């Protein structure tokens, strides 16, 4: 069975500072990895995904993530955050054994302050 662990439930950061949101996964087969963002009272929006190929994945809004198979990690990074990046961020994994359904981590709340 697969699982996803987001190590930080809350990450406070000042505007224009860099940020890293951590995600580790476990799975017995090849996985697909995703980061979604949820703004307050809204649905989920895909930030980026890793299916195969280059381990450094670039997404929307200046975010990127790196797939590290040996460390089973898929950490999300942004070099300089904005107030508007304040949201809930979810890491998710899927594989063929799960019917390609997404299994989500518990989320990390990013709070950007001036």
């Amino acid at each position: 069975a697969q699982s996803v662990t987001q190590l930080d439930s809350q990450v406070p950061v000042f505007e224009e500072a860099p940020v890293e949101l951590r995600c580790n996964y476990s799975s017995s087969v090849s996985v697909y990895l995703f980061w979604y963002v949820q703004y307050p009272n809204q649905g989920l929006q895909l930030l980026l995904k890793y299916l195969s190929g280059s381990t450094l994945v670039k997404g929307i809004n200046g975010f990127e993530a790196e797939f590290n198979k040996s460390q089973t990690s898929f950490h999300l990074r942004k070099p300089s955050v904005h107030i508007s990046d304040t949201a809930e961020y979810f890491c998710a994994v899927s594989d063929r054994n799960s019917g390609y359904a997404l299994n989500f981590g518990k989320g990390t709340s990013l709070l950007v302050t001036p």
Partner: protein
Amino acid sequence: DTAVSQTPKYLVTQMGNDKSIKCEQNLGHDTMYWYKQDSKKFLKIMFSYNNKELIINETVPNRFSPKSPDKAHLNLHINSLELGDSAVYFCASVDRTNNSPLHFGNGTRLTVT
């Protein structure tokens, strides 16, 4: 055009009632899902249908019954609503043949009083 649309957006009802949430996708995807997001923001899959066939049925009370009349629609019917059913329910769809990411609806906030 909204790709995955859910109705209603908000649903307030009393304990013991029966209610339905509807979901439609116009993306031509072959697989649809229902997820539940609890008060702590945790997202948990409930059901999945592929071409109208149930393929995932997680541990969910049998008061919850999904119905897929065609591959573009997946409705969720809930009988005898309980306080603990209060949550945001998200519909999602995907094309499993091309590894596309899930597309989510905007959610239905269910409040049981």
